[in-house]
């Protein structure tokens, strides 16, 4: 067979080739689609812009520097009603981050415990966990939030009932904490002179724990001897700080809540809005996380457990050293979406009057300034930013625990 050179002559490019030539066709279709899509988007945007201009409300963000004029009950940074709408938005943002962080923290712990317990061989425990999961994940989160709030409002006593010689209510936990229908007042640590040294000691002991665990790990690799790492870590965690605290003479004291006027004064005020939102978000999300954890554990072949037992590992160690590291690979990616869900669900905060970013920027500020589009756009950008940050951190963690292919 003779090899004939390709007989196609070098043709010049013609426009029709964009449609009839398979080399270009898909590219043509993609470009045309993109143009149509962009034109559509441009039409929508310009429509919005010209409609707003016709209303006399061109898009501008200068309102963020105007005085807000309203007060916010829970603020992590100093704020008063003379400060700007932008500042109010930041106060709200911090409140969102606070409840999201607290919620994710508790939900993770609960989720892992419940997920493991659901696999328990104890019939009652496993069934109880099943009931918990089914009840919590099959009722909308908004109802849980409102339900929690109603319980707090109706069950706990009014601050007034703590008053007088024979009051209806008294403070709990040895007189340190007041559960009221306006929130829980707990003692607040007050840092006096010398508290810095206690703090430094505490940080140093954390470093020491980390170093000790590293050393113990290396020692075990080298000699096979196992130290009681947990108990020693626990000791390092508490003892040095307490010793320094005693030596300097108790530089950290507690400020107890006291009933004064209409409300309790002093101490830390955990508002019912925060607690109910936090609880509802955590319990609701924990139900989903439990299922994720269960799926992760079940994805590890039972042969792994049997092999570990055959090597003489105890069940706890088997879970810790064999099952969980493998299960984490399955658990982490869906866990990320649960964190994102919890954060985004926190925008339901207004249902109980928790002033998160949706309540300040997307609520009162939007309403008082009438800048709907700007506020909502900012709000979307902020949630996008928070979510992307969470996923990038979690993706980094995921890449650390995932199967290393060498």
């Amino acid at each position, binding site marked *: 067979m003779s090899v004939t050179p390709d007989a196609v002559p070098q043709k010049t490019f013609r426009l029709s080739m964009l449609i009839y030539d398979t080399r270009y066709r898909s590219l043509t279709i993609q470009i045309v689609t993109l143009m149509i899509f962009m034109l559509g988007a*441009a039409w929508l945007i310009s429509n919005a812009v010209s409609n707003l201009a016709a*209303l006399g409300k061109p898009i501008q963000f200068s309102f963020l520097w105007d005085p807000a004029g*309203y007060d916010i009950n829970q603020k992590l940074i100093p704020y008063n009603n003379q400060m700007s709408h932008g500042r109010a938005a930041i106060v709200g943002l911090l409140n969102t981050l606070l409840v999201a962080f607290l919620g994710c923290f508790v939900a993770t712990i609960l989720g892992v415990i419940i997920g493991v317990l659901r696999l328990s061989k104890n019939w009652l425990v496993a069934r109880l966990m099943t009931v918990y999961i089914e009840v919590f994940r099959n009722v909308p989160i908004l109802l849980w939030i409102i339900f929690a709030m109603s319980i707090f409002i109706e069950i706990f006593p*009014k601050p007034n009932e703590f008053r007088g010689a024979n009051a209806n209510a008294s403070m709990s936990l040895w007189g340190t904490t007041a559960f009221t229908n306006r929130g829980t007042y707990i003692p607040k640590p007050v840092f006096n002179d010398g508290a810095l040294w206690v703090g430094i000691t505490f940080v140093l002991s954390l470093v020491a724990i980390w170093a000790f665990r590293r050393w113990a790990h290396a020692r075990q690799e080298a000699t096979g001897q196992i130290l009681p790492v947990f108990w020693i870590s626990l000791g390092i965690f508490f003892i040095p700080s307490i010793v320094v605290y005693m030596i300097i003479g108790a530089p950290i004291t507690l400020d107890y809540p006291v009933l*004064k006027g209409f409300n309790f004064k002093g101490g830390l005020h955990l508002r019912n*809005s925060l607690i109910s939102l936090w609880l509802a978000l955590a319990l609701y999300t924990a139900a989903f996380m439990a299922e994720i954890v269960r799926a992760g554990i079940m994805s590890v072949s039972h042969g792994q457990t049997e092999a570990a037992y055959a090597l003489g590992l105890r069940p706890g160690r088997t879970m810790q050293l064999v099952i969980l590291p493998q299960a984490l690979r399955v658990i982490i990616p869906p866990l990320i979406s649960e964190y994102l869900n919890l954060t985004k669900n926190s925008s339901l905060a207004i249902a109980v*009057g928790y002033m998160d970013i949706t309540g300040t920027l997307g*609520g009162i500020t939007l*309403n*008082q300034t009438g800048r709907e589009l700007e506020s909502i756009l900012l709000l979307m950008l902020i949630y996008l930013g928070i979510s992307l940050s969470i996923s990038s951190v979690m993706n980094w963690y995921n890449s650390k625990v995932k199967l290393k292919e060498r």
Partner: protein
Amino acid sequence: MKKSVFLGALTVAGFAAAVASAGTLDDVKAKGFLQCGVSTGLVGFAAPDANGNWSGFDVSVCRAVAAAVLGDPQAVKFTPTTGKTRFTALASGEIDMLARNTTWTFTRDVDLKFTFDGINYYDGQGFMVPKSLGVTSAKELDGATVCIQTGTTTELNLADYFRSNNMNYEPVPIETNAEARQQFLAGACDVYTTDRSGLAATRATFENPDNYVVLPEVISKEPLGPLTRQGDEQWSDIVRWTLNALVSAEELGITSANIDELRKGTNNPEINRILGTEGNLGAMFGLDKDWAYRAIKAGGNYGELFEKYLGEKTSIGLSRGLNALWENGGLQYSPPFR
């Protein structure tokens, strides 16, 4: 070429946007009913009964407008709005007019681009507390927990009042009057603040209204009235003059009882002009001669509506006060029909 297509598209979009805002009157006539924004439920002003029929002082304004425009006071669909959602609902065209005890302020009129079509209730912000608290003046409220509806002027007045009196408070933001009621009754807040008419209306729904007291201080001016989108003068005029017709009717003694009698013709030319037996005022804004007749006939004149929904014989028990006619020492005063 790509650029010119893009610019062309922009131009088309611009035209489309311009066409989108036709007259509200034509829209309402075309769809055959009036979409009216009211509150989510404030007895006396706007509240649905067991069968879902809305009634109240603000609702009557909607019904009067519907009667004037469409000839049927029942041709109204109500959209319950919260303090937060009301302006967006009106600005977006979801509702044709808003009658939701909304305070007329500079920024709402000028910056939010609405037109206030008169004042149907002169109000002021007050405080309600349980009697057991032993408070007799708002000046004693330092440190109190205060329930407020978010997105209202009351929120800003409250902040101003406590600041100017050097007092502290703990705000509890609330979305609707019903939630405020629950929190206030449970004692989750010491004080509920809103317009005094709203306080009276809320108090009337309590099991033991006598255990609660409205403090004497009035900390703000709250002129409440219906509003429409700015830029549709014809529609704004219709709402404004419907309200004026109700007030004029009281001034001139036109009631729902004698209106049919008066319509046969009287010696008073202004009554004749309002009721359409002399001249044709209605045609000037695109309605027929009988528009005001139907508006007044729908529920009665301003005084009748007040007595029926808010007056001293109702559970709310408000006196006319500032809302009496100017002849009787109040502020209600209608420009002449001429």
